[in-house]
């Protein structure tokens, strides 16, 4: 079977969980003998070792566009203005929605050129592309929801145009894949979709190669790794850190990631008087991500609204215990971790201290968590996708 897939990022050109998930899923699908053509909206040279890594069943298609994942319409204009300072090709549209439109138009050409049996697209920026491809080809459309506008905005200031695009894609789709029951619930609740149309396929992780790191550190380290946006709850991490440091002033808190809250978080840590214990690592990629997990004694994911939360699995696989918010999809599928409500700073701080203070707790979480993370590989989700494809043939 041939799958035409529309995405918006793909490693190494990715900045978050979506690209990682698309990478894992396509790799899993290729093991199920699916031929996947993966379309990305940017013009980059794919390095040869990268293609080899993907296996030969996946072709990478490129479209010129400014699209980046996780953008809100407002932050798109900022990027656009930065780009304008450099030689700037006319091809870029003026707004994010123009880019979405452009991606959709390009999809029409691809739909006519390519030979495929099913269309599978990932999140709202690709939904127009998916719908166009479906209308031209008459092939079934699967939309995969990794996050909704309600997750990205925390429910405040939902952009109507984004919402309409999401809802349009969900309505036009023949089947919707949600990355968790948490997300399925949101789709039913906010988009009025019948639950029977939505199938939950939890994410997984690909086992990273054993990488050896020499970690030299004296202090206990607590890690935050994610975009510094409202959705990821870096502010709650900071408030918890303040509380923990009142108990033990030697603990170090590392914040890895960038985003529109970066300034706020840096200023806030100074205001709270904890800047000497809060270190900013910036945006990490590749092996540095795993180095960060290994260096940490605990990974905290205090997301306000997390459709899945792949980083929790990555950390557990790296042997670092995790504390995750109950408001996450991954909390549905893992048990050997600590959980708290993102707003309950006291509980988060209590659990951070406990994980560092009680070595038997740390030991049990590490051992059981690592074992548990091995249950998640991309073969299962890929098989579920194949079942969905077959049901639509």
């Amino acid at each position, binding site marked *: 079977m041939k799958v035409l897939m529309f995405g918006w990022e793909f490693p190494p050109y990715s900045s978050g969980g979506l690209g990682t998930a698309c990478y894992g899923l396509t790799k899993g699908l290729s093991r199920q003998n699916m031929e996947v053509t993966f379309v990305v909206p940017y013009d980059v040279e794919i390095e040869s070792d990268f293609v080899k890594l993907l296996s030969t069943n996946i072709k990478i298609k490129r479209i010129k566009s400014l699209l980046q994942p996780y953008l809100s319409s407002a932050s798109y204009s900022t990027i656009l203005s930065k780009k304008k300072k450099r030689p700037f090709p006319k091809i870029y549209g003026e707004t994010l929605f123009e880019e979405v439109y452009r991606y959709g138009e390009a999809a029409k050409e691809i739909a006519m050129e390519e030979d495929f049996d099913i269309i599978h697209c990932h999140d709202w920026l690709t939904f127009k592309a998916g719908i166009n491809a479906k209308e031209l080809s008459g092939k079934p459309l699967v939309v995969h929801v990794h996050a909704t506008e309600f997750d990205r905005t925390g429910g405040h200031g939902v952009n109507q145009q984004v919402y309409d695009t999401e809802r349009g894609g969900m309505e036009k789709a023949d089947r919707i894949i949600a990355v968790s029951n948490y997300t399925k619930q949101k789709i039913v609740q906010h988009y009025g979709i019948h639950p029977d149309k939505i199938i939950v396929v939890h994410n997984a992780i690909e086992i990273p190669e054993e990488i050896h790191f020499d970690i030299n550190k004296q202090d206990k380290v607590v890690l935050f790794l994610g975009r510094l946006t409202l959705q990821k709850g870096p502010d709650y991490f900071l408030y918890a850190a303040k*509380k923990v440091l*009142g*108990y033990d002033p030697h603990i170090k808190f590392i914040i890895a990631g960038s985003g529109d809250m970066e300034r706020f978080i840096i200023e806030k840590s100074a205001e709270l008087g904890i800047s000497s214990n809060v270190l900013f690592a910036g945006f990490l990629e590749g092996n540095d991500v795993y180095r960060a997990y290994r260096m940490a004694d605990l990974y905290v994911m205090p997301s306000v609204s997390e459709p899945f939360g792949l980083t929790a699995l990555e950390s557990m696989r790296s042997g670092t215990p995790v504390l995750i918010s109950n408001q996450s999809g991954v909390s549905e599928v893992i*048990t*050997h*971790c*600590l*959980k708290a409500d993102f707003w309950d700073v*006291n*509980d988060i*701080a*209590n*659990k951070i*201290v*406990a994980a560092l*203070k*009680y070595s*038997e*707790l740390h*030991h*049990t*979480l590490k051992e*059981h968590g690592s074992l548990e993370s091995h249950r998640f590989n991309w073969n299962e989700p890929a098989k579920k996708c194949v079942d969905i494809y077959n049901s639509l043939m």
Partner: protein
Amino acid sequence: MVSLCFYFQVHQPARLRKYTVFEINNNHDYFDHKKNREIAKKVANKCYLPTNKLILDLIKKHSGAFKVSYSITGTALEQFEEYVPEVIQSFQELADTKQVEFLSETYHHSLSFLYSKDEFREQVSMHKEKMLKLFNYKPKVFRNTELIFNNELGNFIEGMGYKGILAEGADHVLGWRSPNFVYRPKTCNKIKLLLKNYKLSDDIAFRFSEKSWKEHPLTIEKFSQWVNEVNGNGNLINLFMDYETFGEHQWSQTGIFRFLKNLPTEILKHPDNNFVTPSEAVEKYDVTSELDIHNPVSWADVERDLSAWLGNKMQTESLREIYAIEQQVKDSKDSKLIEDWRKLQTSDHFYYMCTKWFADGDVHKYFNPYDSPYDSYIFFMNALNDVMGRIRNHELSKENIQNFAESKA
């Protein structure tokens, strides 16, 4: 002749509240009084009160032919006294019939036998006093927490003067033998061992309302037929279960009360059947053979061993730590501190820390008031750390007094 011997376990732990690390040395109240009260009231209304009334009616109706036994923990009795005193009264009414036997156990439903024989002995005698005070009853048969048993316990309990002791009739202990006879622990001289018939007990306690079970629904006719089948190849069927089976684990709607109500009449239809209490069983039946039980058995989970409480490092270490401070706690002579330390010994706290999720995990989940075994461990360890802080304060003040005395001298 087949004798049916009912023993019901009545237990409620003092559950811990979400005691955070920030409260250590600031707040010494570890227990979730609200939740404990709610649960005590709920279970009293669903189970203890209606079931006690039913048992009382059945005892009266069958004038001497129907009898049962109970083991009621000290922690449960304290909660009844505080939150639902009518439960105490209803047990006292049962005691007055003289058809009810009360068993001996550790006051705090603890694992103390495995860690400290002194503490074990003290808790058993605390429980004995409570039985005497509330029910004017002197127990003669012993049951250990969660039916944990091995030869060593048999010897110890024999030494304390008991004539009988209860244990799980686990397959790996019995082998080809039947639980429907009286045994003696290999290392003991006098004490008799009564073994739970786990098949027939669990048919009521666990499977009664299980729709996927091929025998569902369990009618009283079917059950008495299974009992009658024992006639000729056994003389005693020990039906040991949690009392909360009636109305709490098996809800009233499942028909469990109707089943219990009809049980004595149906069983007694067969002229060779009767009901006995554990003491009577011990009097009535001779030892068939010896059993050599070196490794502890229990009635928990499919393993029927100690793995529900000692299966991971959090459990073994927290148990080790709580008994490591025994002497210091007792030296403090602080009765509130000693009481809190003992309440922390209740086996349930360690059961909640169990990480054997899959298969048995659902049972653990049902009984776990916390979200995860890790949370249970955190609250427990925070409380234990506060206990340690209180010990240090006692030791410091003792030193201060000494220093003061010396400086005066």
